[in-house]
C-alpha cells in the first residue's frame, strides 16, 4: 500500500485557526494549535482509537453530543471548543469517575511524578471528591510475570495493555476478565504474561498499575536523568532512553522513532541493561600470568597485548561482532591490516565468505528497503529469518503492516515461523536449502530452470513456490520488500539478487531488500571494512584475507599465531564450536574485548580488555537499512573500563612504527571519540561529510545523502546462480535445522531479571518423528551426528515439518554449533546408547 498523500486542512480550536494534516485525530491536530486535550486510552501506536476513557470529550459545532477528540479526524472548517463549561464539566466528571476506585497511594507508587493520571487530575479535575463509599481494595502488588507487577487497585481500565497484547504484539495473552466494574486485567488460568514484547505494557500504562519489577522503587522521576542512545543488542538498533541514577542504568525506555522502532522495545532491550551492572562483569584489564588471568594495570595490559601482537605480525586474525561500533571496527581493521600486516579480519562469524561484487550489488542504495517500507509495501517476503528472534522489533512492524495496512505477507523459512498465522502464504524448505529454494523461485518467476527439480532439491512444495512467485511477481501489484536473514548464506545470494532484479525492486521507491544481519551492527562493521575481501567503504583490498571460518581453521592448524576478538564469542556465535575451541587453544596469542569471562577465555586468553557496554559507548552504528545512528555515553565507565576506540588507538600506536603520532598527512591515531568518527567518515566514501551533529538523535540514512553517489556500484546482474548442492536427504536420520532465540545472548544470562528466560538446548521435533522415535514432550534427548552429540530437551511441535529437527544455536555451550552443519542427525532418548 503506498504511503498516503498528506493534505493540510484548517480548522478552528478555541477560537484559534489551526492547520493540521488532514485525517489526524483532533487530539493530535489540537497540538498544532498548542491546545492540549487530555487522554488516557488514546495511543496511536495501538491502532484504531477505542474512545473508551472519555477523557478527551470536546464540543464540535454542529454536533449536539460531545465528541471524543481521539477518534474524530480533523476536517476543513471544523469549529472545536475545549474550554466551554460543558466540556469542562465532562472532563471533571470523567476524572471524578476514574478516581472513584483509584487509591491515592501516589507516595508509594512508582509512577508518581510521571503519571498521566496525576497530571490530568491536576489539570482537568475538579480538585475534590464526593465519593465517601469505600474504594475497592485488593492485594497488591501481584506478579503478572517475573518482569511485571500488577496493582489492580490502581488500574483505570484504559485497555492499553490489553490492546497492546492483542493488536500490536498479537500474543493475545493479556485480557480483561469479567465485565463492567468487575473487569480486571489478567491472563489465562494464572499463566504468567511472558512474551518477547511484554515490557511495553509498563511504558503504556497511564497509571502505576503495571510496574517493572526490576525498576520497582529504584528511583523517582526527580532522582533520575534520561540519556538517549541506541540499543545495540540486536540489529534492530532501537532508539532508547536510559534512566540513569548515580551512574547506574535503572531502566530502559523507548525513544519513539517511527523509522526505526515505532516506539516499541523488546524485553531483551528493556531489561538486559541489568547485565551492565552485573557483578560478573569484567571492569579491569586481565593479563595472563602463568595459567591464570590476573587483573593488571592498563599500561601492563596494553604493552602485553602490543608485544604479543607485534610478535605475531602478519599472522593475526581479527573478528568483531556484538556491540562493536563502526569506529571500533574501522580502527581494528586498520590496526590489523596496516599495523600488523595481516588481512584476516571478518565480522561474519558464522557466515561463509562473500564475493565483493555480490556485496556491492546487495548494498546498492537503490535496492535497499527501509524499515517503514515494510509497513507500506504491497507484499513482504520474510526469507530465512525469524524476525522475532533475529531483529524483534521488525516482527511488530510486519504485524502492523499486515493488520493495519493490508500488507500481504509471505513467509519462506525452514522452521515454522510465528508469522505464519499472519501470512497469506507460507512455505517450508529444508534447512540450508536457501540456494535451491531461491533458484526455484527465480525459475518460477520466469527464469530458465526446472521449478519442480529445484523444489525437489530444496524439499519445498512446487505449488507453494509457484503461488509465491505469483504473489510477488504479478505486474503492477506494488512494492515488494524482501526481508532476508544473513544466515541464508552466500551461495543463495546470486539467486536472491536475480529474484530482486526480476521483481524490479531497484526501480521502485518503496521496494527492496532488507537484510537482517547476524550481529547487531553487521552492516556497519562491513561498511567500516571489517571484511576479509573489502576495506572501508566496500573498497577493494590488495589481497583478500581469510574469512572467519578460515581463520578458525587456520588457527586450529597453527597457521595463525594470534586471534583478536572484539565483542565476540566465536564459541557462541560461530558455526563450529569445536573448531573454534581448537583454534583458541592452538593460537599463541588471544586478545579479547569482553564483558564476561567465558571458559575458553579463562583458559586461553592472553589479554582480556574490559568491554564497554552500549550505555558507555561513544560512536556510531549502522542500521540494516543504512541509517547511521549515534551512541552516546549514558553512564560513566565502571571500574577502570576504557573506551574501546581508545584502546584500539593505543594498540595501534604501540604496534605501528609507520604511524607516528600527530602525522596529519597520513592518518593518526584518534585522540577523541569524534576524531575516530571523522577518520571513519573520511575512509568511507559514501559517508563523506557526515558529522555527528548531522546524525543527531534520529540518525541519518547514508543512502539519502548526496555522498551516496560515491557508493562503488556492483555489477548489474543477472548473476550466475550456479547449481545448488542438494541438501542431505537422510535415510532414517533427521535433518538438522538451527535457530537462535532472542534469549540466547550473554546479556540475558547475566541480567538477574531475565535469567529465567535464558535458553537451554531445546530440540523441536515433529509429532510424527517423535512417535517414531518414542520421544515424549519434555524428554531429555541426545542429538548427534558424525562423532559429536549434545543433550537437549525435546519439544514436540505440531507444525514442525516431519523429517527435520530444530536445535537451539547461540548458546554458551551445548547448542547446535557443537554439531556438524548440514549433516543428518540421529536423535535418541538420553541415557540410551547413541547410535553411530
Amino acid at each position, binding site marked *: 500500500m503506498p504511503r498516503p498523500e498528506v493534505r493540510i486542512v484548517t480548522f478552528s480550536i478555541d477560537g484559534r485557526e489551526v492547520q493540521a494534516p488532514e485525517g489526524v485525530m483532533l487530539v493530535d491536530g489540537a497540538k498544532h494549535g498548542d491546545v492540549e486535550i487530555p487522554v488516557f486510552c488514546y495511543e496511536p501506536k495501538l491502532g484504531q482509537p477505542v474512545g473508551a476513557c472519555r477523557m478527551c470529550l470536546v464540543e464540535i459545532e454542529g454536533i449536539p453530543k460531545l465528541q471524543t477528540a481521539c477518534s474524530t479526524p480533523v476536517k476543513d472548517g471544523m469549529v472545536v471548543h475545549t474550554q466551554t463549561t460543558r466540556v469542562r464539566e465532562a472532563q471533571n466528571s470523567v476524572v471524578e469517575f476514574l478516581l472513584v476506585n483509584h487509591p491515592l497511594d501516589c507516595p508509594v507508587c512508582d509512577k508518581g511524578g510521571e503519571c498521566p493520571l496525576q497530571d490530568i487530575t491536576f489539570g482537568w479535575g475538579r480538585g475534590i471528591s464526593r465519593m465517601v463509599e469505600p474504594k475497592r481494595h*485488593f*492485594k497488591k502488588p*501481584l*506478579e*503478572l*510475570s*517475573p518482569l511485571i507487577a500488577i496493582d*489492580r487497585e490502581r488500574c483505570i481500565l484504559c485497555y492499553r495493555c490489553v490492546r497492546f497484547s492483542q493488536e500490536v504484539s498479537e*500474543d*493475545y*495473552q*493479556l*485480557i*480483561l*476478565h*469479567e*465485565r463492567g466494574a468487575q473487569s*480486571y486485567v*489478567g*491472563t*489465562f*488460568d*494464572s*499463566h*504468567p*504474561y*511472558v*512474551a518477547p514484547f511484554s515490557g511495553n505494557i509498563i511504558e503504556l500504562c497511564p497509571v502505576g498499575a503495571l510496574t517493572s519489577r526490576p525498576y520497582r522503587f529504584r528511583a523517582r522521576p526527580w532522582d533520575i536523568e534520561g540519556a538517549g542512545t541506541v540499543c545495540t543488542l540486536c540489529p534492530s538498533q532501537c532508539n532508547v532512553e536510559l534512566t540513569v541514577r548515580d551512574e547506574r542504568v535503572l531502566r530502559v525506555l523507548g525513544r519513539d522513532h517511527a523509522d526505526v522502532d515505532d516506539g516499541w522495545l523488546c524485553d531483551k532491550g528493556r531489561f538486559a541493561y541489568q547485565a551492565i551492572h552485573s557483578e560478573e562483569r569484567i571492569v579491569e584489564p586481565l593479563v595472563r600470568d602463568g595459567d591464570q588471568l590476573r587483573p593488571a594495570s592498563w599500561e601492563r595490559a596494553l604493552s602485553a597485548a602490543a608485544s604479543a601482537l607485534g610478535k605475531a605480525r602478519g599472522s593475526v586474525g581479527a573478528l568483531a561482532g556484538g556491540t562493536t561500533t563502526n569506529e571500533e571496527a574501522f580502527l581494528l581493521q586498520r590496526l590489523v591490516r596496516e599495523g600488523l600486516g595481516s588481512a584476516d579480519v571478518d565480522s561474519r562469524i558464522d557466515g561463509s565468505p562473500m564475493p565483493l561484487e555480490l556485496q556491492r550489488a546487495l548494498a546498492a542504495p537503490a535496492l535497499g528497503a527501509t524499515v517503514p517500507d515494510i509497513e507500506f509495501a504491497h507484499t513482504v517476503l520474510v526469507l530465512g529469518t525469524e524476525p522475532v528472534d533475529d531483529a524483534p522489533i521488525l516482527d511488530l512492524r510486519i504485524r502492523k503492516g499486515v493488520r493495519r495496512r493490508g500488507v500481504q505477507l509471505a513467509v519462506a523459512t525452514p522452521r515454522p515461523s510465528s508469522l505464519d*498465522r499472519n501470512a497469506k502464504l507460507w512455505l517450508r524448505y529444508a534447512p540450508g536449502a536457501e540456494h535451491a529454494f531461491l533458484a526455484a523461485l527465480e525459475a518460477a518467476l520466469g527464469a530458465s530452470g526446472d521449478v519442480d527439480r529445484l523444489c525437489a532439491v530444496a524439499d519445498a512444495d512446487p505449488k507453494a513456490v509457484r503461488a509465491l512467485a505469483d504473489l510477488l511477481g504479478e505486474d503492477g501489484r506494488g512494492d515488494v520488500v524482501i526481508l532476508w536473514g544473513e544466515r541464508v548464506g552466500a551461495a543463495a545470494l546470486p539467486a536472491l539478487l536475480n529474484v530482486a532484479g526480476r521483481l524490479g525492486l531497484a526501480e521502485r521507491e518503496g521496494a527492496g531488500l532488507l537484510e537482517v544481519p547476524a550481529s547487531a551492527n553487521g552492516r556497519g562493521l562491513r561498511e567500516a571494512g571489517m571484511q576479509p575481501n573489502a576495506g572501508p567503504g566496500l573498497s577493494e583490498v590488495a589481497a583478500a584475507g581469510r574469512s572467519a571460518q578460515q581463520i578458525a581453521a587456520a588457527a586450529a592448524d597453527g597457521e595463525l599465531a594470534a586471534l583478536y576478538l572484539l565483542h565476540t564469542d566465536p564459541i557462541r556465535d560461530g558455526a563450529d564450536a569445536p573448531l573454534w575451541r581448537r583454534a583458541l587453544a592452538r593460537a599463541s596469542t588471544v586478545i579479547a574485548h569482553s564483558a564476561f569471562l567465558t571458559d575458553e577465555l579463562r583458559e586461553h586468553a592472553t589479554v582480556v580488555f574490559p568491554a564497554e557496554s552500549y550505555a558507555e559507548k561513544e560512536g556510531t552504528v549502522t542500521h540494516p537499512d543504512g541509517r547511521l545512528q549515534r551512541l552516546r555515553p549514558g553512564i560513566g565507565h565502571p571500574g577502570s573500563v576504557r573506551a574501546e576506540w581508545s584502546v584500539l588507538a593505543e594498540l595501534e600506536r604501540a604496534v605501528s612504527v609507520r604511524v607516528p603520532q600527530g602525522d596529519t598527512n597520513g592518518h593518526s591515531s584518534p585522540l577523541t571519540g569524534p576524531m575516530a568518527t571523522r577518520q571513519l567518515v573520511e575512509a568511507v566514501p559514501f559517508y563523506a561529510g557526515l558529522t555527528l551533529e548531522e546524525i543527531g538523535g534520529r540518525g541519518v540514512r547514508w543512502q539519502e545523502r548526496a555522498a551516496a553517489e560515491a557508493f562503488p556500484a556492483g555489477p548489474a546482474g543477472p548473476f550466475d546462480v550456479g547449481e545448488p548442492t542438494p541438501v542431505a536427504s537422510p535415510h532414517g536420520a533427521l535433518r538438522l535445522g538451527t535457530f537462535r532465540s532472542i534469549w540466547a545472548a550473554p546479556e540475558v544470562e547475566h541480567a538477574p531479571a531475565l535469567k529465567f528466560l535464558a535458553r537451554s538446548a531445546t530440540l523441536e521435533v515433529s*509429532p510424527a518423528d*517423535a512417535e517414531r522415535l518414542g520421544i515424549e*514432550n519434555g524428554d531429555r534427548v541426545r542429538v548427534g551426528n558424525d562423532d559429536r552429540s549434545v543433550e537437549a530437551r525435546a519439544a*514436540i*511441535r*505440531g507444525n514442525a515439518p516431519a523429517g527435520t529437527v530444530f536445535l537451539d544455536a547461540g548458546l554458551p555451550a551445548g547448542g547446535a554449533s557443537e554439531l556438524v552443519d548440514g549433516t543428518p542427525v540421529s536423535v535418541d532418548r538420553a541415557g540410551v546408547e547413541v547410535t553411530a
Partner: protein
Amino acid sequence: MSVARYDHGSRIPGWDDAVDLSKDPASIPDPALTPVPAELRQQIEAAMARYPDFRSAAIPALHAAQELHGWCSPEAIEQVACVMRLTPAYLTAVVGFYDMFESKPVGRNTVYVCTNISCSLRGARELHAAVQQAAGDDPDFNVRAFECLGACDIAPMASVNGAYVGPLELSDAERIVEQLRAGEDVLPEKQLLRRKVADPRASTDAPALFDDEDRA
C-alpha cells in the same frame, strides 16, 4: 492428575491472585499436545464453518465445551483454543464477559430465577430465596438470580435448564427441585411454551378486551 484449585473452587484466579510463575506462558495450545474429544472437535469445526470469520464460533464452541465439561474449565478452554487456533486467554475473556458461561464448577441442573424489575415487583427475590433453600447445598444444582430473562408476562419466573416456567409461587420452589431430582418435566402446566398470547384479539380464550370494572 490432581488439579490445584483456589478457595473459590476454580483454577481461574481472581482479583487477588497473582500468576503462577512456575507455569509457561499460555500461547495457542499445540495440537500435538492437547487431546480434544472427537465430538467436541467436530462440533467446534462445524460451528467455525458457518461463519465468514472462524472467530465468530467462539460462543457456540464454548457453549459446546461447557455442555461437555459442565463449566468452562481451563481444560475445556484449552481444548476449544486448540481447535480454533486461538489463545486460551482470548476465550477466557469471552467466558468472563457472558453470564451464561460458568467460570467455576457448578451443578448440572441450572435454575435461573429472574430478579429483574418486573419480576421483583411480583416477588421474585423471595422466590429466589425459596428455590435456593429448596436446593440447599446440593452440588447438582446451580441456582442463580438472573437479570431479566425476557418473560415478564409470567413474572415471577425461572428458567429451569432452559425451559421457562411461571408465574411461580413460593410453593413451586420445592416442586421444581423435586421434579429436577426425579428427572421429570418441570411444572408442565406453567411452561411458557404452552401459554397463549395475552392480547384478547389474538387469543381465543383470553378474557374480554375491556373489563369496565377494572378501569380506574
